């Protein structure tokens, strides 16, 4: 028996699921199983806090299949603080954060969903309470609100790794459009104010795909290092290729067969969504292959355009969402105009999902750690 009632057989099962998630060969399963077994003997603590969020990335997390939520939350990770699932509330809940910071400094993974507002002394996002009393109605006193800024200041120094989960935490997303009012700050920028050397992994997507988020955590835990990241600090395993390159409707694009009327959408034709505003040609994510919600569908699969939600430019700089991208060359995407230069700069072609991880595990083997 492995630790905590999890059998060797179960580890192999998880390892198989993890290999599938990361796009790895079956040959790696024993190696991953060994790494997972190691982890389970001291499950990595996770503290998941929420800034200016909508909880969409937490709900998306619940849609995971490989591994299942219960396996993740109970068997693989020690999810100490996650406000939507945890039993505790109030001081009982925040004491868990305080204890983890004290007892497991340097060991916990900090997950942040939603960005950090910094104006008005952090008043635009608070949770938990300070001990300090402040005046309340009719001469009463009550404990002061604790801004998420204060939590970040305490949590960042002891975090082993920091994951900005979803587009809002990673790039500002929707709340950043109101930055002038609330001082919305990306997680990576806030962390840099505390410790420039602390790595932040950005998981794009509005919401993040459960595989992107969970795959990144597992990857980090197995390899004990931050995965290969692109220029926007996104794991290349999941954000290495353009939607457009792998789109099941690419042939229609090349042939000039475009959807122009939603009543004319015989599903067998698989018309290209470009003229309806598809942002697939400028969006790096593996949605066409990975698909969503247990692979049932994805945006283009529903006869709708990709809105580019995994990109730093989402939402503000990809609007209008239903207008075609400007001046794009229909022959292909190699000659992007200057107006799309912000994207072109990120066009470093990475290997297919998981390739880099395969290499790293391979190195470990060569290094004689067997």
């Amino acid at each position, binding site marked *: 028996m492995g630790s905590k009632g999890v059998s060797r057989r179960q580890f192999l099962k998880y390892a198989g699921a993890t290999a599938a998630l990361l796009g790895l060969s079956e040959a790696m399963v024993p190696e991953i199983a060994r790494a997972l077994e190691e982890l389970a003997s001291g499950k990595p603590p996770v503290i998941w806090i929420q800034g200016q969020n909508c909880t*969409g990335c937490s709900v998306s997390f619940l849609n995971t299949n490989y591994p299942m939520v219960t396996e993740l939350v109970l*068997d693989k990770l020690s999810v100490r603080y*996650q406000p939507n699932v945890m*039993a505790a509330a109030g001081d009982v809940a925040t004491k868990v954060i305080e204890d983890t910071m004290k007892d497991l400094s340097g060991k916990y993974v900090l997950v942040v969903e939603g960005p950090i507002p910094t104006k008005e002394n952090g008043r635009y996002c608070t949770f938990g309470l300070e001990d300090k009393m402040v005046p309340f109605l009719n001469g009463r006193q009550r404990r002061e609100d604790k801004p998420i800024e204060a939590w970040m200041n305490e949590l960042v120094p002891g975090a082993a790794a920091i994951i900005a989960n979803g587009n809002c935490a990673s790039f500002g997303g929707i709340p950043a459009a109101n930055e002038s009012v609330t001082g919305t700050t990306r997680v990576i920028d806030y962390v840099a104010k505390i410790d420039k050397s602390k790595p932040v992994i950005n998981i794009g997507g509005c919401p993040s795909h459960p595989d992107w988020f969970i795959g990144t955590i597992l990857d980090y835990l197995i390899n004990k290092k931050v995965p290969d990241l692109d220029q926007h600090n996104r794991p290349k395993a999941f954000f290495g290729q353009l939607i457009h390159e792998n789109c099941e409707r690419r042939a229609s694009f090349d042939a000039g067969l475009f959807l122009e*009327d939603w009543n004319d959408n015989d599903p067998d034709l698989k018309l290209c969504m470009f003229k309806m505003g598809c942002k697939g040609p400028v969006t790096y994510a593996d949605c066409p292959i990975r698909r969503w919600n247990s692979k049932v569908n994805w945006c283009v699969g*529903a006869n*709708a355009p990709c809105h580019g939600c995994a990109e730093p430019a989402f939402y503000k700089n990809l609007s209008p969402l239903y207008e075609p991208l400007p001046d794009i060359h229909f022959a292909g995407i190699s000659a992007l105009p200057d107006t799309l230069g912000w994207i072109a700069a990120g066009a470093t072609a990475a290997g297919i999902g998981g390739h880099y991880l395969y290499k790293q595990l391979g190195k470990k083997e060569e290094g004689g750690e067997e």
Partner: protein
Amino acid sequence: MAELISIDPVTRIEGHLRMDVEIEDGVVKDAWSSGTMFRGIEMLLKGKHPWDAQQVTERICGVCPLVHGTASSYALDDALGVNLPDNARLIRNLTLGANFIQSHILHFYHLAALDYVDVTAVLNYSGNDPVLQEIKGKIAGLVAANDPYPLLPRYESNDYVSDPTLATTLVNHYIQALEMRKKAHEMLTIFYGRMPSFVGTIPGGVTQQPTISNVAAFRSRLAELRDWIDRIYIQDILTVAGVSAYAPFLTAGDSGGNYLAYGGFDQDSKGNVKFLERGVITNGDIMNVKDFDEDQITESVAYSWYEDSTEGLNPRNGKTEPEVDKTNGYTFLKAPRYNGQPMEVGPLARMLVMKPKMLVDLATQLNLLSTPPFQFGILPRHAARAIECKMIADEMDKWLDQLDINGNIWDKKDLPGDSYGRGLVEGPRGALGHWIHIVDKKIGNYQAVVPTTWNASPRDKDGTRGPIETSLIGIPVPDVNNPINVVRTIRSFDPCLACAIHVIHPEHNGVKKFRVV
């Protein structure tokens, strides 16, 4: 001597909620509800292409994006003068219905159940069911390793369900429910692409034609969900409602007797007939359902972090000027009022307006309808949610039958230069309205009034408490360090704070007047 205790975060809800309660002689004497996070979603829509509104507003909330996207689509349809094809109406009903199922299952099992089930009682399970034995092994492993997060710690209480077989069965249903709510999302994505943040509804219709295969794929999942709702969800609600220790919660947690429903799920192309009916109930007089009049809605900011000059406006003319240092302010939520009165919205309000036989029978059986004024507390709120979940799931099968695989799904309309539109719908958490004003083919103004703004609202200018605040008065708190009954009461409303706080900054809120529709 009254003692003020503060609960923050209120967990297992959506968003950032703080609750302050004053305890005297072991019961709640007074309560203050504070929403503590602000983004400002609507302001970024000004000047944008009107078609973007649905994609942006569905991101107000990641738990109930469907209802925002749907309300927004109806608001755009209204502004564009769309004649919505039946297929589009039915697919919008089916997808919204799928998210009701998802949301209601998630709420009872994953947000609320840990308030009632003692997970440590699983350790005493001695039966032979292999599934339950496996659950026992899992929990035992966590406890032995001294790493029982996130199931423990919790507020301690002596009235958790501690019968080992029942507790283990409920934990098993918690795990099954994770799969069921996921399946409801999958069902939704057959037409809408993905979830959360879906793409299948557009101004004038939907994007995905019904086909023999996608209707069959939807129906097979629906059949499985309907079976599970009937066999498990409804039965578990009845079981918990029958626990003698919880008998006080049949009436404790009553929000004051005012209920509001806009009506939801259009049954005809004009939306004149709704599957969930609209109406207003006041002072607990549930036999007297009054007509809903949109003009009776105003928003008070007397205790909200907004300038007093914006007091008492109808949301169509709404203004929002943040003032975080306001002396009496204690929340980012405004206080919506109907004819000056606070209103509970959500499943209980809808079921009391509609009074389906299943609800009336249960309420009679539980002796809730014997002597007026009737009171409906924590448990009826959960029961109404489950009954509604079953009713919607059953109705969805009929909507599937009505889809026409040769019919249109879109009424293409050009953007008007200047036009108003509104969409009033029902979401899992209650009545939702979106209002749009198109100016020069762009969004001139956009407003949303959201369920939790009604339920979790603060006091208004008359000092009248919001529904959740009122529902807490008299709730027993024998131990101030473990105010379990306070969070039980709050969670019965299924609050969503991200939805509730979503206002426009004054600089960008230029349009003052909406047409009265």
